[in-house]
Structures are given as structure tokens and as C-alpha cells.
């Protein structure tokens, strides 16, 4: 199989986990780059060009709240989960667990 096709499959697989990844790290305030680093530390790679727009989108959907901090020399926009965001996060975690257990069954049957 073409290596590019394979990479696309992996990318496709990971894309579905992006929202969950982002929500999981936003119980406390984070700005764009600090969130990127927090995810990278845990080996979850989301490109900056994907992450920043995604945060904005989640905010417009009401899952995140943001505020500008202009007290320091570098103004930054901080995001954290809203109440709704927190409850959606818990629901998504449950969905994720279901997916993992369903997939596990499928994979174990195979091998």
C-alpha cells in the first residue's frame, strides 16, 4: 500500500479524537501555544494550524469560554471549559470508552 494512503488513514483516525483531546486539557486556563505544548508533552500532535481554529470553533459552539489577559507584555487569549463544555466532555469520554471497548472486541476476534 502507498505510504501516503496509509498516512492519510492514520490521520483520519486521529482526526476524530481532536475535540476530545482539546477538551481534556482545558479544565484550567490555557492559551493557544500552551495548549499545543501541553498536548505535545503527552505525545498528542495536533498541528498549530488546526488547533487554533478548532479552539475558536469550540468557543463559538459554547463549549469553551475565553478571555484576553492584557496584564503582561504579551497579551494572550485564555480558554477554558464552560459548564456545558464540561458536561459535553464527560459525555464524549463515555462515547470514547464505548468505542474503545467495541473496537477491542472486534480486534480480539480477529487475532
Amino acid at each position, binding site marked *: 500500500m502507498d505510504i501516503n494512503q496509509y498516512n492519510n488513514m492514520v490521520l483520519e483516525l486521529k482526526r476524530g479524537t481532536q475535540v476530545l483531546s482539546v477538551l481534556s486539557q482545558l479544565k484550567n486556563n490555557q*492559551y*493557544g*501555544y*500552551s495548549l499545543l505544548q501541553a498536548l505535545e508533552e503527552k505525545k498528542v500532535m495536533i*498541528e*498549530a*494550524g*488546526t488547533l*487554533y*481554529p*478548532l479552539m*475558536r*470553533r469550540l468557543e463559538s459552539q459554547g463549549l469553551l469560554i475565553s478571555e*484576553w489577559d492584557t496584564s503582561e507584555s*504579551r*497579551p*494572550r*487569549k485564555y480558554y477554558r471549559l464552560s459548564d456545558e463544555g464540561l458536561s459535553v466532555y464527560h459525555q464524549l469520554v463515555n462515547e470514547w470508552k464505548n468505542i474503545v471497548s467495541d473496537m477491542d472486541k472486534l480486534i480480539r476476534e480477529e487475532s
Partner: protein
Amino acid sequence: MEKHCQRHGQADQGGIIMKQIIERYIYAVTKRLPENMREEVKEELGANIRDMMSENPSDEEIDRVLHGLGHPRELAKNYRGQDRYVISPLFYDDYIQVLKIVAVIFLAVTLVFGTIDAITNIEAQSIFGGIVKVFAEIVSHAFSSFASAFAWVTLIFWGIDYAARNKKWPEWKLSDLPDLPKPNTTKISRVESILGLVLGTAFSAIFLVFLIRYIHLIGIYENGELVVQIFNSQVTDQFIVFFIISAVIGFIVSLLKVNYGEWRIGLASIYTAHEILSTVLFLIFIHTEGLILYEAFARVGTYLDISASAVQGHFESGVTGLTVFISIMVGIDLISTWVKTLKAKKA
């Protein structure tokens, strides 16, 4: 070299230039966004970019960070959230299919009218010049007709697509499914193509032999004696080489038809090219001034008791009628050929 100067010789100025680069990058993103998002994205993206760099970033650092963010167009797309289309992927195949058919019909129709128009208004010194001129006119007609076919189909599909995205459509019905295509509609029957090859070749051969050797024998005979020659051989001689070329191409096209046995894009293209070439050539031929000798008109006039110029007038309107007829027939033939060809590719 320039870069080198910026970094060492004029560090401050270089820094300003690189700051500008960042601003230009941000502008390249925000200008692609809806107005109400621009200001905020500008602030936030600027802050994010600064966070990703050191206080006084080097050129390489800026380069790395901006390339890491991706092409401004792509980043803008991510910010916008949803993909935007003139024709969405859902409708794209239908669009292309309709576009092909409409383009074929538009092209054929303009071909017909363009040919009639160009032939009846021919004003060239040489035959070659005439052919070139007629072709140039046909091509320019064809081009603008293709452009308008493209514009219309695109506009209409844009509308349909837009409506489909913004309106809930009734559930589709099983009866809406298309009928299965008739099998083998694209096949060229063997008998037809072989017959075409034989008859076409025979006809071309006879035509050419007459044109080359016996043109002076075609005329009006009285009591077994040639009284008046009909065709002006000085005119017909000029056409010989063009008719030979056309006959050879026609022969090759017929062979290809027998060989392939079905319509394909390549075959249909060659067929179309030859059809147009031979039609235009023949139409120019019958429109050439002085093709029929004036004495022949005069002779016919004496039989019918009318003047030679009246006979010539009738002949010319006959030629015009023939031109219209031939052009339309060729147009219809080409439309049906291309519809078959394009369907074949789909099935």
C-alpha cells in the same frame, strides 16, 4: 545576499521587515475570512505566532513557525470551519456530465452557424487562405460558444447547489433512479464501418480521378459532341491537393473506426476534425467564384429561355441551400457521435 544584509548589516531594519512578514501572513489569512471574524482572528493569531517565537526571532525561526502554520489559504479555511464550493462534490459529477453534453450541443450548433456564416461571406484570394480564414472564424465562434456553455451550466448548477444546501429537499423516490443504459449503443456496427470504408474510398477515388483527369469532359453534349464544359478546370485544379489530403485522412478515420469498433474520445476527435475539414473544404469548393463556367450558365439559359445571370442566380441560391443543409446534417451527426462517445465513457 539580501537576506545576509538584513541579518547582519542592518539588523534593525531587517527586524522590521520580518515583523512585516508576520503581519502580511496574518493579513493573507484574515482577508479570506468573513468581515466579522477578521479583527479577532488577527489579534489572536498574532498573539499565538508571537508565543511560538522568541523575543527577537531570527529569519529562520519566523520561516519555520509560519510554514508550520501552513499556507494562509489553508489556515483561513480552518478558521472558516466549513468548506465552500461553487459546485459541491455532491453535485460535481452531475455537473461535469451535463457540462459535456451541453458543450457538445453548443459547439455543434455554433459550428453549423459559424460554418454557414463563414462560407457565405468568404473573401479570400487563395483557397488555402480561404480555408484558414474559415477555420479561424469557426474556432473563434466555437471558443466563445464553449465559454458561454460553461458559464450557463456553472451558473445554473451553482444555483441548484446553493438551493440544495440551504433547503430541505423531499425524500428521493425509487422511481427517480435513472434507466439502465441500452447496452452496446456505443458500438459501431462492423457492417456499417466496413461499408463506409469501401464506399467512402470508392467515392473519393472516383471524385479525385474525375477532378484530376476528366474534369474537362464534364459538360453539355449535343449529338455526342461536347459543346460547353461545366467546370472551370483552372479553379478545380487548385483544389486537387486539398481533396487528396482530405481523402487520405478520411480513409485513415474509416480504418480506425473498423479497428476500434466503438466510439472513444480519440476516435471521435479525429472523426470530428475530419468531418469539419472535409465539409468546410467541400463548401468552399462549391462557393468558389468561377467554379462553373459562364458559358455553361448561358447554355442552360438558352434551353430554359432565361438569361445566363438568372441561371447563375438560381445556382447560387441552390448552393446556399445546400450549405445550410450539409452544415445542419454534419452538426446533428457530430452531436450524436459525441453523445454516444461520452455516454460510453460513463457506462
